[in-house]
Structure formats: structure tokens, C-alpha cells
């Protein structure tokens, strides 16, 4: 049987008349870095929200770590506690940078000395140790992004969801975060990233899914997709002729 960490079967979601995603099925395996790419408006965000239990699909089902999502037995909460979410827009909660990073640990009842230690460790790793005491709403875009990342990682999730996670970063910090993702998956974590950066997909991802107009156009290992793009638009993307 597959080791599928995420198993999405025939998922569709419409908002009024607009069909955001239609009949998408994909599996994400443990330990891999899975990229979801597509032009803007393709439905990537909706797909991601469906996969992270934030948006119940109209049709289809999602299984996460062997549990059924969107069932009423409280499994959604268990699922959410195993996933780390780094949204595209780094959203800071009220308080300091430290408060933000510490939050997932505090809600898991980690004792405060332990919290402090782990927050310091991860902040140092991401180069934001000096701004821990700063009001989170007042930091720069790049600092917020790294804080958001640290917050998603600090409690050692099983799956990391990343949406355009190096958008606001200079190359040095981008490289640090990418190496963190690699390190994370090498230790058994799974990463799902939504991106439009061709080179990042090549650098990082193991498998990718291409979503266009709400449908899954192609899914497979990176070199397979690059070698045999399913249609003209995909070909233009993988050759770099067209940017998404």
C-alpha cells in the first residue's frame, strides 16, 4: 500500500458559478517535495485550501496521514496540528515576533523554558534572532516571511505547506530557507509547495502537479514532466519560454 501522506480523490469546488477546481486527484508521498504550479487563477490556492482542511470540497474526498478530512469526528483538528502552513502573504498575529513563533508550542502545552529554547534555536537558524522582541506588525517583508516560516516549523510538523515562500527574500536568505526545506524532508517530513518559479521547481521538487483552469493537467516526477510536457502551454513553461 502507498505511503501517501495526502490522498486527494476527485476533488471539486465551486464558488457560485465559478468552478475553482474540477475533479482533481493526486497523492503526495512521505518525504517528498511536491510542487503545485499553474498560471494565476488556475485554482492552486483553492486546491491548497482543500488539501489543508480549510475548504471543504463539493465533491471528492481528502485523506491526510490516513485520516479522513472534513469528517465530523474532530480529525480536522488532528490533521491541522500535524501541518505547518506558510501562506503567501506572511500573516503576523498580534504580539512580538517571538509571540508568533512561540504560539504553536504554547497551544501544545510545551513548558515555557522549552518554548524559549526552541524559539531561540529556530530564530537563529533563520537569522531573525535580533528581532524576536519586535512588534510583529512592524517588521520588514522578508523578516515577516522568515517568521512565518519559523512559526510553521517550530513544532516539527509532519507536512509543510508553502506558498511562494521565498517571494520577499534576498538570495542569501532564500537559499537558507530552501536548505531548511530539504533538511526537513530528508528527516521524514513532507513538503507541498505552490510556486511559479521554474528554477525553484527544478532545484527543490521531487514531483510536480500542473493545474490549469481548475483541472489537473499533468502530474509526475520532475524530469518526466520536463521531458514530456502534456500540452503546448506546459511545454512553454518548462522550457522557460513563458513565465507563470
Amino acid at each position, binding site marked *: 500500500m502507498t505511503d501517501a501522506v495526502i490522498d486527494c480523490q476527485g476533488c471539486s469546488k465551486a464558488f457560485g458559478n465559478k468552478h475553482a477546481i474540477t475533479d482533481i486527484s493526486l497523492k503526495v508521498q512521505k518525504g517528498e517535495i511536491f510542487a503545485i504550479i499553474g498560471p494565476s487563477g488556475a485554482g492552486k490556492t483553492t486546491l491548497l485550501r482543500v488539501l489543508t482542511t*480549510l475548504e471543504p470540497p463539493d465533491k471528492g474526498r481528502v485523506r491526510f496521514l490516513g485520516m479522513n478530512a472534513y469528517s465530523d469526528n474532530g480529525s480536522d483538528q488532528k490533521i*491541522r*496540528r500535524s*501541518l505547518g*502552513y506558510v501562506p503567501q502573504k506572511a*500573516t503576523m498575529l*498580534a504580539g512580538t515576533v517571538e509571540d508568533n513563533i512561540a504560539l504553536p508550542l504554547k497551544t501544545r502545552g510545551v513548558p515555557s523554558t522549552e518554548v524559549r529554547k526552541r524559539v531561540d534555536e529556530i530564530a537563529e537558524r533563520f537569522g531573525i534572532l535580533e528581532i524576536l522582541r519586535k512588534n510583529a506588525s512592524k517588521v520588514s517583508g522578508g523578516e515577516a516571511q522568515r517568521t512565518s516560516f519559523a512559526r510553521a516549523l517550530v513544532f516539527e510538523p509532519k507536512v509543510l505547506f508553502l506558498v511562494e515562500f521565498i517571494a520577499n527574500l534576498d538570495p542569501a536568505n532564500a537559499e537558507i530557507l530552501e536548505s531548511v526545506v530539504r533538511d526537513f524532508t530528508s528527516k521524514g517530513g513532507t513538503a507541498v509547495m505552490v510556486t511559479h518559479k521554474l528554477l525553484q521547481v527544478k532545484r527543490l521538487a521531487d514531483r510536480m502537479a500542473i493545474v490549469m483552469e481548475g483541472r489537473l493537467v499533468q502530474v509526475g516526477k520532475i524530469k518526466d514532466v520536463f521531458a514530456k510536457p502534456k500540452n503546448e502551454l506546459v511545454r512553454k513553461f518548462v522550457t522557460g519560454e513563458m513565465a507563470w
Partner: protein
Amino acid sequence: MAQWSQLIEIVLLSYYIAGVSTLIGSMIGLPIGAFLGTKRFKGKFAIKTLIFTFYGFPPVVMGLIVFLLLSSSGPMGFLDFLYTPWAMIVAETFLATPLIIGITMTSVGSIDHNVKDLVRSLGVSKARALFLYLKEARSGIATAVMIGFGSCISEVGAAMMVGGNIEGHTRVMTTAIVLETRMGNFQTAMFLGAILLATTCIIYLAFVLLEGKRDD
């Protein structure tokens, strides 16, 4: 009404009654408002409209309703609340709570949806999530409490009706002003009015200062 001790008693009682009413109204209104602000459910539109309607609920009508409830010949007469500060607290709590619910609901409802997604994705308990929403909407909530308090401290019609303006027991600044005006003692009435304004101003000043320091 010339003694200073009477004046102090009236001032303290006014703040006690308004304070307790606001406190109870907040304990009820903040969680309900946060819940209503974030959950999608059937009939939400109807409930929202109902709450907003209560913003304009005439205090004197509320006073009458509470009076009839607490009257000896009324359903809650056994409480023996009428003409005591407890009756005034009941009436003022009923007036303040819809305001607190409504303003909290609106503030929490207008939290950035990215924040809401983030909180949800953390997988915290419902209670903890509500608490986080309240934290995010902190200034809206402070407003809700302040407005709730304002409606209590300035209340006169309902306070008069269910309290009876009894000296030493249920006379507060507003009802005392009515009394002095009725007797033609306009200077005394103005004096009381000035004290009411000044003391309330101090309380709001404290609120604003505490709130303002948030942005370090």
C-alpha cells in the same frame, strides 16, 4: 443634597452599577460576538439584524420591561430586586450587551481572512481560536467595552424606573441630576453633570492610554 458624603456615595454607586453591568455584558457579549463574527451559519443575517436593531432599543422601554419583570406581581418578583441597585444592573446589562455583541461581532468579522486561515490552520481548540480572534480584534473590542460602559453610565430613564432614585440606595448621578432639575436647582444639576463628565473622561483617558501603548 448638600453633603459631600452623599455626593461621593452617588458617584461611587454610578460607577459600581455601570462597571458591573459592563463587566457582565462583556463576559456574555465578547464570546458571543467573537463567535458570531467568525462562524458561518444559517440565520446569521437575521441575528445580525436583530442585534443591530437592539442598538437603538429605547432605554426607557427596557426600563419598563425590566420593571414589569421584577415587580412583585411579575414573574421575577421573588428576587426582590426592584428598587435596588440589582434591578438597575439588570436593566443596564440588557442595554449594554447588544452593543458589545454587535461591535465585537463586526470587529472580529472584519479580521483579515488570512489571519483567520492562519488561526484555523493551527488546529487549536475552538475556545483558543476565539481567544486569538479577540486578541486580533483588540481595539475593536476595547471600543465595544467603552461604548457599552458609556451606555450604562449615561443611563437615566431605565435607572429611574427600576431604581426609584432612592436616596442612599439607588440614586446615581444621572437620576440625581433629574431630581435637582425637577426642583429647579439648576446649578446643582450642572455641577453633578460636570462631575459625571469629568469622572467619565478620566476613565476613558485611562482606556485610551492603555490601548495606545500597544504600538511599541
